[in-house]
């Protein structure tokens, strides 16, 4: 297993390199630079700024300088926030985004799996149609609509939950987690239902029932393990989606996470921030996909033998 993990991680390095290269080129192609302001910046000041941040060096020199610094762990200073380094900003924003993503994932898994499970047990009845229609609504409703709706109900009309902030008042993490997790809950519900329906029609389930095992044991212990396979393989892209979906939720709820910094960096043409956050997110996504693959394989003994022994 260790050899497998190492092989996967080594293969990730060229992927990251290509990501850095493409991002580097793209941000510099976009019109407008980090120091463009509404008021004219005096020539001399602009010259000094460009010199300080090495923006007057030729592009390929800048690229190799950047990669060189990167290998030493230095993401560079932020152009927009001059007294903060990109590393500092990432460290302040990442724990928040990961916490938000984690709660959203919990919400998605708990609501999604339980709803999908319920629906799969009595297919084509009300117990199936109602949750699945709700799931459809959840998938279609974007977070920038759902978020404000939840805020309106729970924050403004009933005044039960705070409308923005993270960690400033009790319960301000509930609405953002719900908003972000809702779409994924819907996907997971549909996937669980599909997976469970397939597994529940298998012979070994019929055997277990015939052998007199209680229904809950058949479903939860024997069927769920196989039925969750599509959900597990969805978790990789779901984690990626949660990270990028956090941008909208963070803006709606004013959460100080990476998503908001990423958006601001793009608008501000803060080259180093954009690169730093892109690299960080790419690395996270690569790691999540790796973890997902490992879990998938571990869940299925047949695959386990194939993958790890080869």
């Amino acid at each position: 297993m260790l050899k497998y993990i190492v092989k996967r991680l080594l293969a990730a390095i060229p992927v990251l390199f290509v990501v850095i290269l493409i991002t580097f080129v793209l941000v510099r192609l976009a019109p407008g630079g980090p120091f463009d302001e509404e008021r004219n910046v005096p020539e001399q000041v602009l010259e000094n700024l460009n010199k300080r941040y090495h923006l007057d060096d030729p592009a390929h020199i800048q690229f190799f300088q950047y990669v060189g610094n990167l290998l030493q762990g230095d993401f560079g200073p932020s152009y927009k926030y001059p007294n903060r380094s990109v590393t500092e900003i990432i460290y302040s924003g990442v724990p928040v985004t990961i916490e938000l993503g984690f709660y959203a994932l919990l919400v998605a898994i708990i609501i999604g799996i339980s709803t999908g499970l319920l629906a799969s047990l009595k297919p084509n009845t009300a117990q199936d149609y109602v949750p699945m229609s709700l799931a459809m609504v959840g998938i279609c409703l974007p977070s920038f609509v759902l978020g404000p709706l939840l805020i309106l109900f729970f924050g403004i009309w009933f005044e039960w939950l705070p409308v923005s902030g993270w960690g400033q008042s009790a319960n301000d993490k509930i609405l953002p987690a719900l908003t972000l997790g809702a779409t994924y809950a819907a996907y997971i519900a549909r996937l669980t239902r599909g997976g469970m329906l397939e597994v529940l029609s298998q012979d070994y389930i019929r055997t277990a029932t015939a052998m007199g095992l209680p229904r809950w044991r058949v479903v939860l212990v024997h069927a769920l393990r196989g039925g969750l396979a599509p959900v597990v393989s969805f978790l990789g892209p779901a984690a990626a989606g949660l990270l990028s979906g956090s941008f909208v939720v963070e803006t709606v709820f004013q959460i100080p996470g990476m998503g908001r910094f990423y958006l601001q960096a793009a608008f501000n043409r803060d080259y180093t921030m954009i690169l730093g956050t892109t690299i960080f997110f790419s690395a996270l996504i690569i790691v999540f996909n790796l973890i997902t693959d490992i879990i998938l394989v571990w869940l299925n003994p047949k695959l386990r033998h194939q993958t790890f022994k080869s």
Partner: protein
Amino acid sequence: MKLTIFRIVAAATMLGALLSCGSKTETNVEKGNREQILYVANGSEPRELDPQLTTGAPEHNILMALFEGLVNEHPKTLAITPGVAESWSVSDDDKTYTFQLRDTAAWSNGDKLTAHDFVYSWKRSLMPNFGSQWAYMKYFIRGAKAFHMGETDDFSSVGVKAISDAVFEVELENATPFFLKLLVHNSYYPVHQATIEKFAPIDQPISDWTKPANFVGNGPFVLSEWKLNNLIASVKNTKYWDAANVKLNGVTFFPIEDQQAEVRAFRSGQVHVTHTPTMAIEKIGYYQENEPELLDIVQTYSSYYYELNTTKPPFDDARVRRALAMAIDRDLLVGSVSKGGQSPGYTLVPPDPQGYVAKFHFGYDIEKAKALLAEAGYPNGEGFPEASILYNSQDDHRKIALAIQQMWKSSLNIDVGLNNQEWKVYLNSRKNFEHEVARAGWIADYVDPSNFFEIFLSTSGNNHTGWVSAEYDALIQQMQEEAREPQRFELFEKANKLLADEMPIIPIYYYTDINLKSPSVKGWYGNVKHSHPYNRVYLEEVKK
């Protein structure tokens, strides 16, 4: 069966947990009223809190709490009042200002504040490598421009001197009647030399000194917390010379850039007041109808106009430019399109109730506009080349551009397109003169018409019209050298008339600041600079 019951119970438990933990907690507004802490929604996250480096309004709002300059502004009239300087005198030729600093002036760490601190700070902002974008505001001082351009590295050639610990003297290039008004800008604030030098040399802008653990300031409040994209908190500075009269115990700023989130934060009691130039446009109507007492609409000294690229035909013809300007129904625009209580603008410079109000206005006249357009060679709009209005992607700009496009079509029969671009792309396009018509705005740095007129000097980097006029340049030069008010007003009027004749820009309206304010906020008055000194603000619970 058991499964279903189990699931129903689980769902009910979750719902119950959700509802029970969401009981009514104290809002920030209630807490703030009790503890005298003001909560402000402040727009975007500040780039920096170094007063000589920042350029934006959100930063200035915060710096006003953390620092104090030589002078202050009266919260209602904007009249200049003593700050760190308890008195001052001006020489007979109006070129030398001598400030007497009060001996109770101190830094938040207890150090005494002296004239040497001002010399150090002003020198720092003029150092060529430091990169202060507001250095040009100090060019009124003798020798400042030469020093900033690197022509000399001897700061004693600049007219900034500490005569003694308590006496600070400034010599100007020309008599500048509005010089005192400049001093309230954050680039003129003093900074604490010892703290800065602990972290970086004088002209190194990247430094840790503004982090809360290291921060030293001289304002009514001192920085206590700075969580990125989360909040900036300040607490009362007990060493401030006027601390006895400061009623607030702290001010906390929330960097909320999303306009919808800002309104929600106010509605739910998270903030007492919003301190951004404008608010979500579709919410203005609701508040005007239902809760007008919460809405704070203030005329400001800022102008919204369209810049015409005079290097591209047909905009090189002044008749075309005047025709376009006269064909816009500004009353309709401010009444039905922007709806924020703005005033229609027929001159570049907004009216200043305490000072200059422009006399000549060109007016809304469709017949005259049609005649001018025909005279220029485009009768009834025939043959008018392709052109478009460039603006940055924002709803209010789009609505105005759309309305003006329709007005030009219906009254002049010309087709003008709309070109919206993202902010930085828009800035870039405008800088490269890719536009025919470009939306622009100018918020005055200080309340004096010269600040507006100077935009259209032929050498100004903020002039995106390509319009060059030696007569205008000479007029502005005269303006800069004239100190007597009646003569200055005459020069302003001349410049105003020249701009109306040549029309390189089309004035549209004068901005209003539209904010939400809780009734418990007292001592917070509207003024044309949207400036609210916190040392006179306090909170009082309003009896319902």
